[in-house]
């Protein structure tokens, strides 16, 4: 593939991925309450509204809270699970592992419907903790994948060496395994956090009418009232995601976190 073909393909993908963002960013700059692109002028007022209008910042805060706790839950499930599968030989661990990887193999609408059904049966429908727990389980796949990759790269001889020096289970984990998988743990947390922040269908089906998250609010606005605030918020969210992932890339080795092998 000649050099120009490669450049063209890269350019196509980059443009394709960025085009919607560019449009959204442009729309967010409209001084008037219209969704014109290119924008009629340049105004940052809608970014201000995102922070001052409770109709917008409350769902934003809801989303941040849900995302934080859901990501914590996802990680709390993924870490012991991946560690046990790596370190010990327990039959049903693989089954649980499959359960952890499976949610992403389900069409998302089915996961959402399942969550809805579950919370109705448990008579918790509409309460905030429902979306946190459902997100947590759904997003477990992400830290599970990153941690599995990380542990695969960990030379088991390190554990053996520690044991010859007298370290037992907890110590081995604390001193050898945990420091090593920390970047993978962080990456998994960040992935789960960012995806929870932007997740729509599960949030809609579980708490859509009671505890609005931002995507739900945006969707409602799409149908019932257009405003550049939606665009401004989208830009902010994208910027947050870029910043978080860039941070992960700076602190850790992003290619390796995503599954590339050791050599440069």
């Amino acid at each position, binding site marked *: 593939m000649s050099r120009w073909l490669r450049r063209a393909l890269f350019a196509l993908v980059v443009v394709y991925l960025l085009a919607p963002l560019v449009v959204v960013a442009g729309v967010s700059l409209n001084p008037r309450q219209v969704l014109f692109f290119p924008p009629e002028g340049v105004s940052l007022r809608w970014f201000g509204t995102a922070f001052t209008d409770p109709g917008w910042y409350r769902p934003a805060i809801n989303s941040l809270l849900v995302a934080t706790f859901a990501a914590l839950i996802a990680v709390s499930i993924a870490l012991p699970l991946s560690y046990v599968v790596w370190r010990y030989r327990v039959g049903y661990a693989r089954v649980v592992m499959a359960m952890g990887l499976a949610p992403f193999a389900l069409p998302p609408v089915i996961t959402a419907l399942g969550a809805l059904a579950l919370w109705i049966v448990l008579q918790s429908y509409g309460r905030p903790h429902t979306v946190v727990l459902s997100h947590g389980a759904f997003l477990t796949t992400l830290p599970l994948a990153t941690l599995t990759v990380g542990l695969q790269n960990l030379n088991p001889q390190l554990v053996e060496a520690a044991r010859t020096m007298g370290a037992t289970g907890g110590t081995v984990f604390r001193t050898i395994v945990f420091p090593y998988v920390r970047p993978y743990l962080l990456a998994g947390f960040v992935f789960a956090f960012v995806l929870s922040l*932007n997740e729509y*269908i599960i949030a809609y089906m579980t708490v859509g009418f009671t505890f609005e998250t931002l995507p739900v609010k945006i969707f409602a606005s799409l149908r019932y009232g257009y405003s550049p605030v939606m665009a401004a918020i989208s830009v902010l969210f994208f910027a947050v995601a870029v910043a978080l992932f860039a941070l992960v890339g700076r602190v850790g080795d992003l290619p390796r976190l995503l599954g590339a092998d050791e050599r440069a």
Partner: protein
Amino acid sequence: MSAPTAGPAISSPADARSGDGPWPHVLLAWPTVALTLLFLVPLGIIAALGFFRRIQAGFFEVAFVTDNYARALDAFHLERLAVSVVLALAATLVTLLLAVPFTFLLTRRPRARQVPYLVLVLASLSLSEVIVAFAWSLLLSRTSGVSNLLVALGLMERAASWSPGLPAVLLAYVFIALPLAILSLYPTFSRLDQELPEAAGTMGATPLAGFLTVVLPLVRRAVAATGALVFIFVLGAYVIPQTLGRPAQWTMPVHITDQAIMKNHLPLAASLAIVLLVVSSLVAIAIVALGQGRWPRLALPGRAR
């Protein structure tokens, strides 16, 4: 240096285990409970829900009726199912056609140069489907979209609205699927031994011929798995077909959500969901199986010296 060698004899401590005590079970307790309750149980409920009866007052009552499945499999819904599958397959195909060469070429670049692209891909993956739908509706609208650009360039006479409609749905599907596909293919492509396509080059294969005869056969399983993943993800998307599609493009998730929330008919929604699940699993398995089969022999033109 990844000739198909034997790696270290022990690849994980689990391979060399002796008595472990209660620890593994203690550690597994929370994951098992959480995943069973939050993943398995809901699935079971949906499976059962399809047989319950819907009542006007509340949600449903426990019963055993087959009306829901009968309706889920009627002509209307079967057509919707077919449309959903075809749309998802089309989106999957386009996504793979873009993602496979892109990921391959990306992993040939030095690691440091890959990072900006990876950040872009990750950030795009995290965009809410709602935002994606919103952005594409703008991008394809008459007043502020791409068609205006084409008019300015003289390639079109008048601006047109391409949303809602089939192109909009497909473009948006590919948009949300592309980052997923790239990230799914990334580990396999980045671990691909550089020297294999190089060796092909020393034997006279052009870069394209080398890609087709050496690289692709080695990654076909990963490509198939990615295809299955993308297919399922797209098939189960709600916002995009709902917002960017006309009723002709409203896929199963749209109807499922409609029945569940708007029409309060949970049993029907559940039976539709199970039907969708069964069909999507079958198609996904077929895609993965396609990846296991023998790669068709690619006939290459003779190389003149």
